């Protein structure tokens, strides 16, 4: 195999391995679904934090390290980059579907620019958009608290960011 082909296959392999690494706070989605894993350049995985102060960032890096080591890829390094800043637009369609099924209303696609003026969230349980925001700050930095005014269930919404 040529050197270029080898690097390509390493990239695929790394993405495959990391697509099985769950987010520590929202275990239904992987770090790849969330867009935390940005790229594989040569022998280095490039990751980016969601929020600067998210305590899960450290756990995520450790989980990625463990997964790479277990797959025999201990030579692959991890590099953290802040730029360009993470946005919820990087959450994959698959990730959005998983969040919805888990009970977390996914962020609107392409809505990151309008994060402070969001349209009503869709209740992940009954599908109604007759909902209200209870608090813009929730149990983790990435989520806000909402309530469905039809089925009356409270739920989390992934903030557009």
């Amino acid at each position, binding site marked *: 195999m040529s050197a270029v082909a080898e690097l390509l296959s390493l990239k695929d392999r790394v993405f495959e391995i990391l697509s099985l690494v769950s987010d520590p706070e929202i275990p239904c989605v992987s770090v790849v679904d969330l867009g935390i894993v940005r790229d594989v350049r040569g022998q280095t995985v490039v990751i980016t*934090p969601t*929020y*600067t*102060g*998210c*305590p899960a960032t450290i756990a995520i890096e450790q989980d990625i390290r463990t997964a790479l080591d277990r797959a025999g890829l201990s030579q692959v390094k991890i590099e953290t*980059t*802040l*730029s*360009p*800043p*993470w946005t919820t637009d990087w959450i994959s369609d698959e990730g959005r579907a998983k969040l919805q099924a888990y009970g977390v209303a996914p962020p609107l696609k392409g809505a990151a620019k309008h*994060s*402070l003026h969001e349209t009503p969230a869709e209740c992940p349980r009954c599908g109604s958009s007759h909902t209200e925001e*209870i*608090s*813009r*700050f*929730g*149990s983790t*930095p990435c989520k806000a*608290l909402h309530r469905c005014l039809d089925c009356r269930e409270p739920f989390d919404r992934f903030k557009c*960011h």
Partner: protein
Amino acid sequence: MADEENLFHHALRLGDDALILGQRLSEWCGHAPMLEVDLALANIGLDLLGQATHFLNLAGEIEGKARDADALAFHRDVLDFRNCLLVEQPNGDFAHTIARQFLFSNWQELLMKEIARAPEPRLSAIGAKAVKEIAYHAKFASEWVVRLGDGTDESRARMIAALDWMWRFVDELFDPKEGAPSLRAEWDARISRTLAEATLEVPKPRRGVLGGRAGHHSEYLGHLLTEMQFLQRAYPGATW
């Protein structure tokens, strides 16, 4: 060399502002008037601590003396801190906490927008990331200023008293030497807009108190540090 030193001090000021206000907000954890506010203040504090980590790590990297964010946060004494006086003011009642956050976050949002366009890539990367978070902080604090100002007689009186106390620390943010004087007009416009909505008047100009950027702090900072740095003072170099 001079450029490097300026950049070090710039990053240190930004990091210290975020660190000290983050620590102050963490004091509310478990004590806020209601659960949603408790979560919000803790979340804002956490964002600020995250920003502080990035800015202080950068300062340490530029300095080149093997000091990282933890070393700068836990192994400096009060005279070496370069935060503005506003952020070290005690939480007081809820109105004081909101007044401090309102004045600071509106300033910090404008500042980070500018820093996001800075030519130094390590600095601009942190600014671009932080500005998205700070927009939430500014909105949260502004909404509470309106709620308290245009609320009951009691909440209104407390909001007025809190703004009156915090207002003396505003000039330092725009100090021509180490502040951001060019942001004053836009900041004033934002603040007046929200205060008008809150049916409050802009506090009367008063002689500003300065000194934080030179390490001349109020007595409150020392007390804050004794708590924040306790573990590293009692068990130097402890890790877990």
